[in-house]
């Protein structure tokens, strides 16, 4: 029997890579949580995208977000997407300012569509963004792999950890 909250796997990049994959995820937990601390090989407009059971493709993802970049807060909706992106990825600045993302994936092995809550914390000493997002994967298939993707490479040292959470 797994513990209530335990680490399933950690991936710290020893060299730059365009994606990080957690595969063969057991169905023994209730929820999943991913914590990603990412830097990038160059400025990117799309970092930390999350897809399930394969690389980003198709149109089964959608999300609603609320975020602020130091002035007025903003909200937006994206439907029919190939993946869920964190709340705001437009300010990622190369490999010196780490971005911090969390992804809570509910009932990942259940029979309903899969819903995700994400947070982003990105501060670049004068600019940045923080926000929350709810995402949907319109599939009743159990999640067995999670793929984090960047439009440019994740830099060396980027770390992603996958946790399993088990209810009573």
């Amino acid at each position, binding site marked *: 029997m797994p513990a209530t909250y335990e680490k399933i796997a950690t991936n710290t990049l020893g060299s730059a890579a365009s994606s990080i994959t957690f595969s063969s995820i057991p169905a023994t937990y209730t929820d999943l949580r991913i914590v990603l601390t990412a830097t990038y090989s160059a400025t990117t407009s799309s970092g930390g995208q999350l897809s399930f059971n394969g690389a980003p493709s198709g149109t089964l993802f959608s999300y*609603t977000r609320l975020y602020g970049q130091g002035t007025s807060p903003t909200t937006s909706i994206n439907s029919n997407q190939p993946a869920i992106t964190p709340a705001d990825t437009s300010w990622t600045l190369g490999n010196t300012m780490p971005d911090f993302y969390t992804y809570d994936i509910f009932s990942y092995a259940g029979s309903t569509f899969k819903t995700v809550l994400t947070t982003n914390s990105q501060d670049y000493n004068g600019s940045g963004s923080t926000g*929350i997002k*709810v995402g949907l994967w319109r599939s009743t298939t159990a999640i067995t792999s999670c793929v984090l993707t960047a439009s440019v490479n994740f830099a060396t040292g980027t770390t992603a950890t996958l946790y399993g*959470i088990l209810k009573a």
Partner: protein
Amino acid sequence: MPSTILGIIASSGGAASTSSYESIASATGTGSSNTITFSSIPSTYKHLQIRSIARDTNTNNDFSSIRIRLNSDTGTNYVRHLLAGDGTTVTATGATAQSSMIANGAARQNGSTANIMGVSIIDFIDYASTTKNKTMKAISGNDVNGSGFIRLNSGLWLNTNAVTTIELLTDAGFWTTASTFALYGIKG
């Protein structure tokens, strides 16, 4: 409205754990009750967390919420704030003298597309203190591919008693059988 009482002893039985984050109890909606109750909560943790997926039997196609009461207090002893986005408008609101706290947008109504649930992570800080009022934070939301709601909620219970019971109520209707609520304790 009938309530489902799910005490800790009745609903516990999860994995033994030696970590700082432990499962206390969980409950599933019945389709005929508007309330999930976690009772006899031990005071042995520092904080509590509830993780939920929820849908109610209201036949409309919209979001709904989880209303939260502590120690069965139905008085107007709650305060709450909300920061909300729906893809078009950002809203910030607050209210005093409320009869519950709210995890706004944490559920979907049953007229929504099948299999879509609202979700929430609700944290109760220092819940066992006997000298402090009790503060709650919730991140909640739901998305239906083309519309959605994301919410950051805070709540305050103006009472210094230790929290021993948490009730989770629908806005309207009952919790569906696809709804699950899990209570965790976090050690300090």
